[in-house]
């Protein structure tokens, strides 16, 4: 974008330009590098910092507010909890707030949108040294873009497999599949027994997340360093054949993820790939109706698990050095081991704190469906990673690819078409 052609106001009506000027100036000094400051060198009196987040961050935010305000007398932490239904909506709200001049200092960000924020909004890098000693640093790679940590992951999940073991046992399947090949073979047997399509891999909602897991675990590259898709190769095709099989053999009904959850909850579905964060709600729905398990997501045959991290993290958007210092302290307080242990327990997230993980390992619920993520030892990768603001568009294309493949079309037909569209969208 050429700066000389930027116009700060619409040329057609003075009244409108007035409105625009006010809003345009609200953004302040974005983009200008600000030298790092230490909170100790700043005067907190009269300073207000704002944290904006979705409901799942509320407990952490309230605790952090109390702590930081106590430690820095005179500082006010304003909490803005938005009642958004998902991370896309949360991002939309923060984007519109920033456009209106209300840029928060700390924001919750869906882990699939890190690259968008890093490319477009100059978040302030987080110094890992400032985080709690017990914070599990292996998760920082998730929030890293070009060597800088922009997001401190908070509630993290990886795709998992839900199995209705009543249905699988009845078909003579004893153990959970570890590869997609096994999953397909088991599914054929179960379908022979029940007559109904036994598998659901997300076709919307979190479709791109699971697709990325399949592609990466099959050894293919999801996003190349230049920002273009990297899975139009032999490995990518082999990984995607999993979806093609499901569609061609009609092992999966073409329904939405929400309906798939219902099918699983009512005991009609043997396998579904989902997020552990749904396990608590699923447990309530199922009750004692039938036994079920949460296990590792099967990887394409010959592949190694490489799972993108879902969930959310905290990001510092302050433009002023002192506010950024306070925002950093707020993020540190939000990542409190007790808060992490509680939210991991309630919503079955992977604990990002070693202290919390230790506590959860000793928890009696560790052996239940909720416990799988608590003992997860892998290192998840970054989710998404499409450059600039291409992510939402690309995700629509990826979702369409999943829907077409599970609808019975072939990889050879769908893949080149989708890759071409993604390539033109990321340009």
């Amino acid at each position, binding site marked *: 974008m050429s700066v000389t052609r930027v116009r700060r106001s619409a040329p057609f009506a003075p009244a409108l330009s007035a*409105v*625009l000027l*006010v*809003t345009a100036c*609200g953004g302040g000094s974005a983009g200008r590098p600000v030298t790092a400051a230490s909170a100790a060198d700043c005067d907190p009196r009269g300073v207000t910092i704002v944290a*904006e987040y*979705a*409901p*799942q961050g509320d407990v952490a935010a309230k605790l952090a507010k109390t702590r930081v305000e106590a430690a820095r007398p005179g500082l006010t932490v304003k909490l*803005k*909890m*938005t*009642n*958004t*239904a*998902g*991370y896309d*909506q949360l991002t939309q*709200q923060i984007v*519109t*707030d920033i*456009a*209106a*001049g*209300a840029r928060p200092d700390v924001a919750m960000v869906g882990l699939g949108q890190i690259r968008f924020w890093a490319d477009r909004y100059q978040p302030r890098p987080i110094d890992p040294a400032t985080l709690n000693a017990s914070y599990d640093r292996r998760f920082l790679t998730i929030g890293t873009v070009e060597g800088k940590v922009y997001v401190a992951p908070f509630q993290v999940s990886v795709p998992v497999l839900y199995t209705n073991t009543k249905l699988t046992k009845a078909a003579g399947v004893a153990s959970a599949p570890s590869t997609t090949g096994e999953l397909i073979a088991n599914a054929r047997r179960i379908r022979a027994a029940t007559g109904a399509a036994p598998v659901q891999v997300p076709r919307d*909602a979190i479709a791109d997340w699971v697709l990325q897991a399949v592609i990466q675990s099959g050894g293919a590259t999801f996003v190349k360093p230049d920002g273009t898709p990297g899975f139009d190769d032999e490995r990518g095709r082999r990984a995607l054949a999993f979806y093609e099989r499901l569609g061609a053999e009609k092992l999966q009904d073409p329904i939405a993820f*929400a309906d798939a*959850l*219902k099918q699983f*909850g*009512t005991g009609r579905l043997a396998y579904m790939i989902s*997020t552990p*964060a*749904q396990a*608590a*709600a*699923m447990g*309530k*729905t*199922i*009750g*004692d*109706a039938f036994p079920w398990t949460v296990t590792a997501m099967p990887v394409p045959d010959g592949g190694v698990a490489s799972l993108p991290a*879902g*969930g959310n993290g905290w990001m510092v958007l302050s433009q002023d050095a002192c506010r950024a210092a306070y925002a950093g302290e707020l993020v540190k307080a939000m990542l409190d081991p007790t808060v992490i242990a509680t939210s991991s327990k309630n*919503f079955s997230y992977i604990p990002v704190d070693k202290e919390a993980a230790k506590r959860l390992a000793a928890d009696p619920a560790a052996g239940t469906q909720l416990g799988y993520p608590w003992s997860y030892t892998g290192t998840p990768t970054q989710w998404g990673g499409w450059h600039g603001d291409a992510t939402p568009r690309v995700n629509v294309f990826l979702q369409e690819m999943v829907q077409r493949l599970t609808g019975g079309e072939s990889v050879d037909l769908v893949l080149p078409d989708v890759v071409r569209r993604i390539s033109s969208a990321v340009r």
Partner: protein
Amino acid sequence: MNERALWRVVRAGLAVLTASVAVFPFVWMLRTSVAGADSVLVDGLAPVPSSFDLGNYTRAWRQADLGTAMLNGAIVTVSILTLQLLTCVPAAYAFAKLRFRGRGALYLVVLGCLLVPTQATALPLFLGVSSAGLADTLAALVAPFATSAFGIFLMRQHMLTIPDALLEAARADGLRTFSTLRRVVVPAAAPAIATFAVFSIFVHWNDYLWPLLVARDPALRTPPLALAIFQQAETGQDFGALAAGATIITVPIVLLFLLAQRRFVAGIAGGELPG
């Protein structure tokens, strides 16, 4: 006589059928609202859940803070409706019964506004409201809807049918414009006004997009916004509480409709003026 009896049967059958179709999803919602977590999801038609949990209602009420939300909703919808009536009735009357230069052109502008979707203007409006310092205030929830092109259109359409003789008579009685409006036009246009009121109340009570943009403060949440807490995409939906909450917020407006009904369908027939 036979034909009459047949018609009665057909009519009753039609009434039962159409009412069933209209009501069926609500029965389902009620069912879900009292179902225990393990019987929220069922197959087919099972009007009575296998386990009950009235805790859905307490959860809906507390977690979503529906008390505050409904108070906000009431304030917002009533304020909007009041402002709309105050602005639309006179404007509609002017378009219907007064002769002035530019009337046709101005009315076309109003009609054009009917065609502008609120989704298209949402962002500029939000930026304007924010720059006016109104973000996160009740005023921001109300102001953009203070008048309604649709209201003007609907009421003008009805006011065209008011006989000029009636207005002449009012004039002959020495009524000035505002008294004429209040004592003749408003009663004569009552069905249109009532129709519009019902429309406006329901639309704004259930509005989601605009409140989502401007009301971030939990204390300002309107009912649909408050219910969104049970709709978290990531951690799963709480269908029981969602259905209970939806029931809670639907009851008052249905009651309102029942009460308004008398006003709205009776007493206008034959052109006699009620009140």
